[in-house]
């Protein structure tokens, strides 16, 4: 019986189906909000779902030069890895996999998901994909530094009184927030939260920072040679990553169990995810133009790292 509940948790509620549904919802809302901010009607909320279905229906062309196994395999591997990441992140009190979710493990799994996309691009053998994957790598280098600093800050802020000095596991962080309120309200964590809000658009490749899939400059960059179901899987990974990152932010800074009543918690959790997505992804998308490669790198290693370092120093000083 326990297995069935476990399977339900893995495959349906906080697992596969819920992630996909939330990913589609968040991406649809994101497009709608961006459109409304640009004073136009914007696509229906379920548009990402129609895009996914349409891509599934299309023919899959495998270029002669591509390495077939890696070309077809890496989209699915990337998606499955991302679902396993989103299962580490507790949502509204539900921890789908009782395996102890650790921030460093999540950091490295997210890196693995981007590596899968890079492998797919490399295996397609197209020069556009080559440029795309080099830009994706530069983007990864640029957002990894602030992301690491934020993780260290949160671990220190939560674990100050613990014997080991730092709590990296998300359950510990949530337990701490249950006792003394969301982390966001303590002054030390505000710069770290701002830094994290900047990291989310670059990690998920949203508009101002999507130097890897710039459709105008390098013809869809990494996905230049993809069509059909592999392309659908990559776009689905892109959508679910938006959900994973915003639910990670909610788990890290806003806590999980708000009222104790499960359905209400889930609703609040969803609304918070939407709010985080709006601030971090929709606003910059509607307002800014795409940055150049070294502008992204320069911006992340000076402004965003400045916020993250300020957070770390504040926490270090024991505020």
């Amino acid at each position, binding site marked *: 019986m326990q297995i069935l509940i476990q399977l339900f948790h*893995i*495959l349906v509620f906080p697992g596969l189906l819920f992630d996909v549904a939330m990913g589609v919802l968040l991406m649809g809302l994101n497009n709608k909000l961006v459109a409304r901010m640009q004073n136009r009607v914007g696509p229906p909320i379920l548009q990402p779902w129609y895009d996914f279905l349409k891509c*599934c*229906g299309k*023919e*899959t*062309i495998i*270029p*002669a*030069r591509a*390495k077939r*196994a*890696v070309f077809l395999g890496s989209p699915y591997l990337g998606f*499955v890895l991302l*679902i*396993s990441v989103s299962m580490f992140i507790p949502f509204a009190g539900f921890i789908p*996999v009782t*395996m*102890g979710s650790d921030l*460093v*493990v999540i950091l*490295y*799994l997210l*890196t*693995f998901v981007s*590596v899968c996309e*890079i*492998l797919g691009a*490399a295996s397609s*053998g*197209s*020069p*556009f994909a*080559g*440029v795309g*994957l*080099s*830009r994706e*790598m*530069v983007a*990864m*280098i640029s957002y*990894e*530094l602030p992301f*690491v*600093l934020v993780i*260290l800050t949160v*671990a*220190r802020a939560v674990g100050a009184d613990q014997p*080991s000095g*730092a709590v*990296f596991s998300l359950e510990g962080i949530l337990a701490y927030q249950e006792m003394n309120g969301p982390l966001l309200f303590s002054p030390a964590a505000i710069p770290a939260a701002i830094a994290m809000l900047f990291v989310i658009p670059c990690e998920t490749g949203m508009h101002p920072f999507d130097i890897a899939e710039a459709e105008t400059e390098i013809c869809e960059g990494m996905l230049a040679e993809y069509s*059909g*179901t592999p392309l659908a899987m990559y776009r689905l990974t892109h959508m679910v990553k938006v959900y994973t990152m915003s639910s990670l932010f909610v788990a890290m800074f806003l806590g999980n169990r708000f009222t104790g009543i499960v359905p209400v918690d889930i609703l609040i959790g969803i609304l918070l995810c939407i709010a985080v997505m709006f601030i971090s992804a929709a606003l910059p998308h509607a307002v800014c133009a795409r940055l150049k*490669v*070294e502008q*992204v*790198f320069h911006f992340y*290693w000076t402004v965003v790292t400045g916020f993250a370092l300020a957070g770390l120093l504040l926490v*270090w000083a024991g505020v």
Partner: protein
Amino acid sequence: MNMEHYPILAIISLFLGAFLVALFGRLNKVLRNLIVAAAVTIPLCLMIALIAPVMIGGQVIGYWMGNWAPVGPWAIGIGLEVDALSLFFGLVVTIAVFVSGLYSFTYMNRDDSLENYYTLFLMLSGSLLGLVLTGDLFNIFVMIEIMTMTAVALTAFRVDYEGALEGALKYMVVGSIGSTSVLVGIAMLYSQLHTLNMAQIAAALPDHQNLVTVGAFAFLFLGFSTKAFLFPFHPLAADAHAVAPASISLMISGVITKCGVYGIIRLAYILYQNINEPAVSILITGFGAVSCFICVTMAFNQHDFKRLLAFHSISQVGYVITAVGLGTALGLSAGLYHAMNHTLFKGLLFLCAGAVQYATGSLDLGRLGGLAKKMPKTCALFLIGAASISGLPPFNGFFSKWMIYQASFEKGLDTGNFFYIVVCVVCLLSSVLTLASFVKVAQSVFFGQLQPQFENTKEVPLTMRIPMWILAVLCILTGVLPWEVLQKLVGPAAAAALNAAGYIQGMLGSGAAAGAGAQAAFSMEIGFWGPVSWLCLLLIVSCAVCLVAVLGTAEQKSPEERHEMDRRAGRTAAFTRDGFADAGRILKPAEKEGHYRNPVLSGTTLTFTGEKDPKYENFFSGEESEYSQVGGGDLFWGFKTNWRHYFQGMRRWHSGVINDYTRYGIVALAFVLLYACLFL
């Protein structure tokens, strides 16, 4: 024959093998290979046999050569001391020696005078094993000398290879600085303590502390860090590894650096037991972190596959030294675990580089590309190695790096010293840069477009791939079962290093005393990470995804089937527009022939004479797809432009001139001496 004699037997079998190959090697090839194979497998079996008593039993083997038992407190003869730490490094050495020997049977078959090669190779392996197992300080110096000289000779084995002699010369000159500083250190210690046996030194040192022993510490530390190619000495590592044959660069980067690490651990944890002093810990961790960061950024720009791997091996050794320098139990076990992982995945990567060189003859990242289709198995092996070194979860690099971050962060919090937080961030950052450079290698060697001249490269023979598969399987095993490896191998080794009393008692006691060797009492409160249960989680989710994928999409027919279906159903091309004719005839949109190439109608698609079906060609915004590989130097443009001043400084600094490198060595020696006198 009880297992007292196993250590000396292992060392002797290697040296004996070297001697026999020198004698009979020239006679016939098969005999020579047989001797080498025997000489290489015996120590491995002996070391594995020793695991049970030493690692799990916790016994410390003290073995006096020539049965010169100690007289009272004074140790006269040379003693072999094998505790869990020595055995751990012994295992690492013998695995690398076994794999490298197996690999060089086929890898070197295109060279000549191979008996010299195998003599030097077995001498090198014997000296490495001797260095690790000996309990006598001067014996360590003797083994270091043999190791350096044979490594120099082997680096220059392919004399005609461009840069081989220069690399070997540099290695000899700067290597000898290291050896002489070790010798000076030993002399200073001997002058104070009148003994050379490490256990006795460890016992006598605490009450003989004066300026001379502090100077000896500085000399010894610098000598060992030269062997480990740490910060000021790392450029020569790149020159030496890049030109040596692949099996030898595996030995240099995988094992010789580990002996430098072993020396530093022995020095700081057992002899002087001063690792917990903040000054010593900061010195060692500082060296480790700086060499880790500088070598990763240097590796970023390399154009040669093996030079890039060389710089990466020094940055990984930097990780190990950082972890070792922390002094906490968690830090030391993280360092040891990463040392073992490093030998495995770095060996695998060097053997892949050797395979690429064997198959295509070139290692230039700018010219290679698209080898995945020609050498699929080597590409798979390379991906396993690259995933392990960049620390992706199911592979072994991840767990040890994670332990290092956790250890350095907690050390920073306990001591309240912000230096360790900076070290932790630098390590995390180097991990991303490692991943970046291996993405660069993957794109410019295996993926991307194949250059016409490498059209007929073939896969390397199976005998070369077996050692690579051994290393790959070990990489995956140590990655998927981290807790077992920690309990069985790394834990006892760390415990042995931490309790110096056990070491002394083991040696000077009744020679086979049952030392303490209790399981390390350090608390391993790493966040829980069960890779096995994570993998079955992956399995469940991937089954669900594949189920949906199979149901959802229309079945994809291959182009030939589709063509056949068209033909059978009579649906063929007969364009009806007035400018057309039936299939096959060249269309003449414009009457004049001129430069313009007429499209030909073939089947259902319009193509051009002599050009492949554009549908399956890469998208070149309409142009005919010709060779234009994006790889090697033109990747990571954004990062390089932002850091161009740093990289220009690095290029000026790594001038490649021997006197510059020796000057850096002397400056480093002066700095360490000054630092030791001031702070220790």
